[in-house]
């Protein structure tokens, strides 16, 4: 009974609304319908400030949703990368134990592991811009003389040679740059196995000497640290050859190379401290 009454009400309301709706359609150009339209518009449409706020809110919300989606995707990528690194670390631990056992058995000298110490450049002398700089860590961080200093090169996505520690104080250290005129570094031409010497001359360039005359060294060749270096790890990138000078000596030729770090934008560096000595 109640259900039937409800259905009857539903039908009546439906008929009324339908008639009203069709009346609006038929009389859409009449002033009465325009009045109703204006009235509903006035009620439903927010004022300019509110509309502006709503649009801004929706814009922000949409941006935030996009950011959340982006972060979620980034998070997934990082998780995968993390998993891969964890796998590598696990393998490394196994290999490291095996290496320890073998080196003990064969009585071999073990390769020294290094630990990265991140430092900030705290002082530079403008008149000796290409010669040295001061970093904000020293003896307190167990740093010592002759520790190699490298810098991250964004374009190459690797650590490149910057210099070495020459003086250590309690909470600072002085680093001689490879562009310093008193600095000499054994280097080699990458993929050609030609050993030569890099000498700084107080500019953004270094001089590469003792290149055999018959070697096919040309501009664009990369300079890396040679095995003969007692400070830097072998193969660390140093710079790239810009010019080859042929006529200095009969047996050898000289070249000019540009270093991989831009001296004007050196703010941070990494010191590669041998793990046993670093506490």
């Amino acid at each position: 009974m109640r259900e039937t009454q409800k259905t009857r009400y539903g039908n009546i309301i439906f008929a009324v609304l339908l008639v009203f709706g069709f009346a609006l359609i038929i009389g859409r150009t009449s002033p009465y319908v325009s009045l109703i339209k204006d009235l509903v518009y006035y009620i439903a449409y927010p004022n300019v400030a509110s509309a502006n706020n709503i649009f801004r809110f929706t814009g922000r919300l949409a941006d935030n949703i996009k950011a959340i989606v982006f972060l979620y995707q980034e998070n997934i990528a990082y998780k995968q990368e993390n998993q891969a690194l964890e796998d590598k670390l696990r393998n490394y631990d196994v290999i490291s134990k095996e290496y320890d056992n073998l080196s003990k058995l064969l009585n071999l000298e073990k390769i020294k592991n290094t630990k990265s110490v991140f430092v900030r450049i705290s002082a530079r002398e403008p008149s000796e811009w290409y010669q040295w700089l001061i970093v904000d860590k020293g003896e307190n961080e167990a740093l010592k003389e002759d520790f190699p200093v490298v810098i991250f090169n964004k374009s190459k996505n690797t650590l490149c040679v910057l210099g070495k520690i020459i003086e250590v104080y309690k909470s600072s250290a002085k680093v001689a740059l490879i562009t310093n005129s008193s600095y000499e570094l054994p280097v080699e031409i990458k993929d050609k196995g030609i050993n030569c010497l890099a000498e700084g001359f107080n500019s953004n360039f270094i001089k590469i000497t003792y290149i055999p005359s018959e070697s096919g060294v040309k501009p664009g060749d990369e300079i890396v640290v040679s095995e003969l270096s007692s400070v830097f790890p072998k193969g660390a990138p140093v710079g790239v050859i810009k010019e080859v000078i042929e006529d200095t000596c009969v047996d050898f030729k000289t070249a000019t190379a540009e270093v991989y770090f831009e001296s004007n934008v050196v703010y941070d560096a990494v010191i590669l401290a041998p793990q046993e000595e670093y506490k």
Partner: protein
Amino acid sequence: MKKIIVYFLLYIIFCMLQFFFGKYLSVGGVFPNFILILVVYLGLTRGVVSTEIIGFLFGLTWDVFSTDVFGIRAVMFTFVGFLTGMMNKNFDKDRLPAQVVIVLLANLTYWFGFSFIYWVLPAGENGPSPFITAQAVFKILSTAVFAPVVFFILDRLELFARRDA
């Protein structure tokens, strides 16, 4: 009173979703008709009376903001609300295929009714428009695809409201 507040909030939320979020969610001008999904949902859960009134108010609001014939959406949403309200005993709204099929049928009814009214109207400034186009087909399909999502959210909201009460 509580019922009126819930309807009012749904009205505000779905108006904002339909009228303000369109530019962010539309792909090639295709954007689901969230209001139609809500009307169908209310029809299946609340019955005829409230659904046709809500449908009429939604249609009237949309008519005010659009440049189409004034009153056309009010009529069509009322019609859809009435039809789904009448059928609420015949369908199990919790089943996903049923949700998709009902929304698809309701949307087809809506678009055919819309086109029919335009067709019978005398040609002029509000003359017939080609409504049954490829874009309309995509709109109908996208609405049907989105229906389960909106149904799910509305179900959760209803559960939440009941738990609070």
